[in-house]
């Protein structure tokens, strides 16, 4: 049955990227243990609105753990630290009456704060645009069963493809590395036969953009794996390191050669 919680929140407030932020303390009372963490923030925002104070800005959308929009460092842990759980799926039944909760945005050089708890994660989009795809224009595909994919490969591709691009891995990493995110996409595509023909270029290109975007280097702490709400396994990073080393040897930058036709 539902119990009610009284909580003390310390929430990061920052009006814009240029103004320094600070933690502000609020009290919320009578929060049902059946509420989700974001519903608890909704209750806080209703309170603030009623007092004429601007509500806390936080990113969220689907509230069912799949869109990857929600974030939040909760008591220093991305998404609050419950196994395989995004912030929107974290429910208040894991907290106790009179708990103090610290709520902050992702902290990473490549994810600048926009306002309060919202950060800019477009660096992830730039990494994907550098090669996180298989080139196949609409209309050019063979029959789907012409290319057989062993179940094992499809399953491992799916394990990696489950990434929701939330950025918890970067926030958890002491170096702010995006290695798990990038390697998850590479592993998804490289476990499939369709992904083979662009493998080397893709690996070099995505890793290059990742480095340029201001993410740190991976030094094998594996905090990312522990924080990942989709439990992307760390072995995808080993695969990427192998692919990257291979690509560095055999791949030369693409040159366009005219075939002289016409």
């Amino acid at each position, binding site marked *: 049955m539902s119990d009610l919680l009284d909580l003390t929140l310390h929430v990061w407030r920052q009006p814009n990227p240029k103004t320094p932020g600070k933690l502000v303390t609020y009290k919320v009372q009578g929060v*049902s243990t*059946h*509420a*989700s963490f*974001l*519903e608890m923030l*909704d209750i806080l925002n*209703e309170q603030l*609105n*009623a007092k*004429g*104070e*601007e*509500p806390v*800005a936080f990113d969220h*959308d*689907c*509230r*069912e*753990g*799949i*869109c*990857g*929009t929600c974030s939040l460092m909760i008591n220093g842990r991305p998404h609050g630290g419950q196994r*395989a759980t995004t912030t929107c*799926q974290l*429910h208040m*039944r894991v907290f106790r009456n009179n708990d103090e909760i610290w709520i902050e945005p992702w902290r990473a050089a490549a994810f600048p704060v*926009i*306002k309060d708890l*919202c950060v800019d*994660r*477009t660096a992830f*989009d730039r990494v*994907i*645009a550098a*090669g*996180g*795809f*298989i080139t*196949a*224009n*609409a*209309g050019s*595909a*063979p*029959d*789907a*069963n012409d290319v*057989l*994919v*062993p*179940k094992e490969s*499809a399953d491992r*591709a*799916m394990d990696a*493809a*489950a990434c929701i691009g939330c950025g918890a891995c970067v926030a958890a990493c002491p170096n702010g590395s995006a290695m798990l995110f990038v390697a998850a996409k590479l592993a998804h595509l490289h476990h*499939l036969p*369709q992904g083979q023909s662009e493998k080397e270029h893709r690996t070099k290109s995505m890793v290059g953009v990742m480095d340029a975007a201001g993410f740190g280097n991976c030094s094998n702490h594996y905090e990312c794996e522990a924080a990942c709400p989709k439990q992307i396994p760390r072995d995808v990073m080993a695969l990427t390191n192998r692919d990257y080393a291979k690509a560095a040897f055999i791949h030369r930058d693409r040159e366009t050669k005219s075939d002289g036709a016409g």
Partner: protein
Amino acid sequence: MISLDSRIPSGPVEQKWSKAKFDLKLVNPANKRKYKVIVVGSGLAGGAAAATLAELGYDVACFCFQDSPRRAHSIAAQGGINAAKNYQNDGDSIHRLFYDTVKGGDFRAREANVHRLAEVSVDIIDQCAAMGVPFAREYGGTLANRSFGGAQVSRTFYARGQTGQQLLLGVYAALSRQIGSGKVKMFPRTEMLDVVVDNGRAVGIVARDLVTGEIKSHSAHAVILATGGYGNVFYLSTNAKGCNVTATYRAHKKGAGFANPCFTQIHPTCIPVSGDFQSKLTLMSESLRNDGRVWVPKTKADIGKRPSEIAADSRDYYLERKYPSFGNLSPRDIASRAAKEQCDDGRGVGPGGRGVYLDFADAIKRDGENTIREKYGNLFEMYERITGENPYRVPMRIYPAVHYTMGGLWVDYNLQSSIPGLFCLGEANFSDHGANRLGASALMQGLADGYFIINYTLGNYLAGLNAQKDLVDAKGAAFSDVESSVKTKLDKLLGIGGKRSVDSFHKELGNIMWENCGMARSKDSLEHALQVIPKLREQFWSDVSVLGGKDTFNQSLEKAGRVADFLEFGELMCKDALVREESCGGHFRVEHQTPDGEAKRDDEKFCHAAVWEYVEGSEPVRHVEPLVFENVKLATRSYK
């Protein structure tokens, strides 16, 4: 007066699309780059359209309110995507998918559109597999299938319980490739606030940069809206919090006809409401009904007992009882109404008696827990995270919730709205699902529209334009007028300085809609809603409190604009539901039912799409597009 020429090609239904593809005019490859196209929305329909049009060479700009195109709500679709591949050798065909969809929609969709959808469904699977979508496979490496409601064949392709996610990430990958090569300019965190119409033609949009607050005009030769459905008019729905009607409703106010707004889908298997703090409802995939059995206690005396204490013969497996040939896989509208019926009868389970059991005990006994975990593991985990109960041990509790909207902007066969140059794709249009959508068909339609239809039909429109002369200056009067009206509205919202939050109005509207225009509607309930909605709207415009500024990131202001539109749109829905004096699919008028409580259509009077025209300062005008059934015989839908 709006024009409703459906432009359905002549000839037999199975040849219409081939004929259209030949008849539609083409734009020369070298000229395509001279045409600018705006796509609003980056889900399956919008993202696929933006990517595909850029592949063809058009100059594309794509807008989404989310922080990345990868977040569009298509991502939340769980169960699968239909296609008439007949890989299972179980009797499927394009004609059968066409037939099932027309029948599933309770004969309120256009035959020609549905047939085209069934035809291109097979290409979608090929395309997605080639792009690396990790569909489920058999041990031999071929694609696996499962069944969905309303079908007696296995034609649903899936990627665990995350099919929408994987298809959307495929679309996002294709879109990202075009963004990386400079063919698509992407505007994330940017919300379209109005469409610009000049000389009767859509020529661009006015949008707000949600980070800086800047209002900006964007000019193009054509505008494509792929902005999803309006289920959030009910406040509680399975939609993402940001889903809204603003783009299509504001286009409607500029002259686009809105078709069948009362056709909404209530999904039978969602996690029940747990308190007044509830901010959204979570779907449990229809695919669960492949293995889960739906039941409630036979007698009220057993309510309150633990499910394990209720013996097998004291349980009412009401779907199996009422619809023996489709059983637990009855279509959504029917399964939802049946659940409501049991709960109205006082045999609902869980808090407030608004729930029924979805029980996996028999499947676990038959196939073992591991098999069930492999099929549905992530859904079971999600259920446990939300409810705190373990569905491997106790049955899930589910209840219907608003999920999808079949109504949308009216479009012709070419997916063009009643405003020339304004196209509408995916859930945002009205065209393919009639009065009820079958499971696993939303993903199919979004990708069909985006990958394989708009690429032909848009070219036909653009071929009639002059690339230079017909691009309207974004600094000209046509745009600046719209910009100033958009700014005035934002100022007005910020200036009210009332006491109530935007959410409190949204919740109140949602409650009115759910109680009066939800799973069951009556003349009385709809007339009541039409009384109270205008009052609530008036209160909103005098007492809403929207804090913060307009030249800054302001989530309250974003919500306020969307809720303001819902407060007008909800009224249109109720009007549409009131005039449609019949029951069909998701639209159930209690006055029109068979003796055993099934929907009773009136084909004499209502075999048409109702298309509403907005009239400034006056009542909207209802037009009709008659529906003609030449291939699927009009019949009473039966799943018994």
